[in-house]
């Protein structure tokens, strides 16, 4: 197997005395979609925040593309191409769609920004129609598209998506999953945190189930989908 793009070992992190992650081990290989599953409050977002440098780990290592990013600051992590589309979108509500997208390339600078913008707008024609609109006045689904578009503007090598389907209608959720599949076919590596277990497993290659701050199960997505005992034990399905 190839060298992993992202390799996490023994990661501990949390909020002051309140530790949430107690030694996470996780790999993402180039071109893979990896699903991270787990109950509410188990620490999936905490993991994403730690990977993207918003939260400092208390122990463990994060290697990305051969470099040690454990202590790297968030700007260096973005520049390395590890880009996090957060839970709750976090678009800039007071900025136009266009300015939101342009800021997605903030860490990279202006070189080839126009071409990237063009590519993102081709993926999201709806954003092109609304370039001048304030992001805060868009619908939840549009804001999610914008959040992903902003992430793509940074030319990610690994895209972390934290509950992108949260609050979307079933139809929009379906669109979203086919979009994720398309991005993956274009070669993007994706770490997908989702509540839509069935749909996530359908597009992911592998899945990690987090329980009590540990990886309780790491398996091929197909295996997790097909084995009724695993489904019952880890996903409550």
């Amino acid at each position, binding site marked *: 197997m190839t060298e992993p793009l992202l390799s996490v070992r023994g990661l501990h992190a949390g909020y002051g005395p309140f530790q949430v992650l107690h030694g996470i081990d996780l790999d993402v290989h180039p071109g893979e979609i990896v699903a991270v599953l787990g109950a509410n409050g188990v620490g999936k977002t905490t993991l994403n925040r730690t990977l993207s440098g918003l939260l400092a780990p208390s122990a463990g290592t994060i290697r990305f593309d051969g470099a040690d990013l454990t202590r790297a600051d*968030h700007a260096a992590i*973005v520049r390395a191409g590890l880009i996090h589309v957060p839970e709750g979108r976090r678009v800039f509500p007071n900025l136009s769609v266009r300015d939101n997208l342009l*800021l*997605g390339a903030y*860490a990279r600078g202006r070189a080839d920004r126009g071409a990237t913008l063009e590519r993102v707008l081709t993926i999201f024609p709806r954003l092109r129609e609304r370039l001048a609109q304030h992001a805060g006045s868009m619908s939840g689904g549009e804001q999610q598209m914008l959040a992903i578009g902003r992430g793509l503007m940074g030319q990610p090598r690994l895209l972390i998506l934290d509950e992108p389907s949260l609050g979307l209608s079933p139809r929009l959720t379906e669109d979203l999953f086919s979009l994720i599949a398309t991005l993956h076919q274009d070669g993007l590596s994706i770490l997908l945190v989702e509540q839509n277990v069935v749909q996530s497993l359908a597009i992911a290659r592998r899945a990690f189930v987090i329980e009590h701050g540990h990886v309780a199960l790491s398996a091929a997505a197909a295996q997790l989908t097909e084995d009724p005992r695993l489904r019952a034990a880890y996903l409550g399905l």
Partner: protein
Amino acid sequence: MISLSILEAGLVNGLLTGGVYALIALGLTLIYGVLHIVNFAHGSLLMVAMFGGWMLVEWAHLDPYAALPLMIVVMFAIGWGLYAGVIGRISGGDDRRILLATLGVAIVLDNLALVLFTGDTRTIETPYQFAVIEAGPLLLSVPKLISFGVAIVLALLLWAFMARTDMGRAIRAVAREPDGARLVGIRPGRIFALAYGIGIACLGAAACLLLPTFYVSPQVGNVFVLTAFTIVVLGGMGSFPGAVVGGLLIGVTESLGGLFLGESLGPIGISLVFILVLLFRPTGLFRAAR
């Protein structure tokens, strides 16, 4: 009965004065919009800028308008340094502590100025300080015209910077969504220092525009800062157009108030306009695009 020409003169005069008010308020509203605190050091830093300009004029024999670009740079550096070295450090990002830190800076600067310059009032002399040009029935003060023009140009430049550059976008982004900003690689601490620096740089410009027609003393900031606070609240806290329109409105109100009510009662006019605006628009004239 006040004749029409006097009324016109008062109106134009107020408008011209309002330009500088707008500039001072722009700095205040920018800092408020990003840091979400009222910069209590604003008046004191205006005073520092005026003394800086005064020294350049008196000691280096610069024209105040030639000193203006220099003072913009100097005040930007002072603002940046104050935030990066003192305010940001003391506060650790906590809003209440930022507020207190700016208050502390104000107290130190005010007293430092008293020690260095005593409480005396100083003025500069320029060949054009009493120059006027005729515009129809009106006599317009040349330094006030210049100050108005420069203030408006600077306000437009600042607006273009905020709207069209990545730094401007980053400042606006951090103001509302610091976590989202981090995720695109923006460092909010640097942006705060930048925004504070720009807000203070506005004072460098305002100081040089005021020098030809105003005095300098360690208390001079107080004269303007209350007006600037009024403008910021009246215009809509954090709003750029609000600061500019509010500045001009308050300039005119002050001038007409003085005309109708006399020097001592004139300021009542400002309070009246203030109360009226907030009565009908409690968030100010412009809802800040925040």
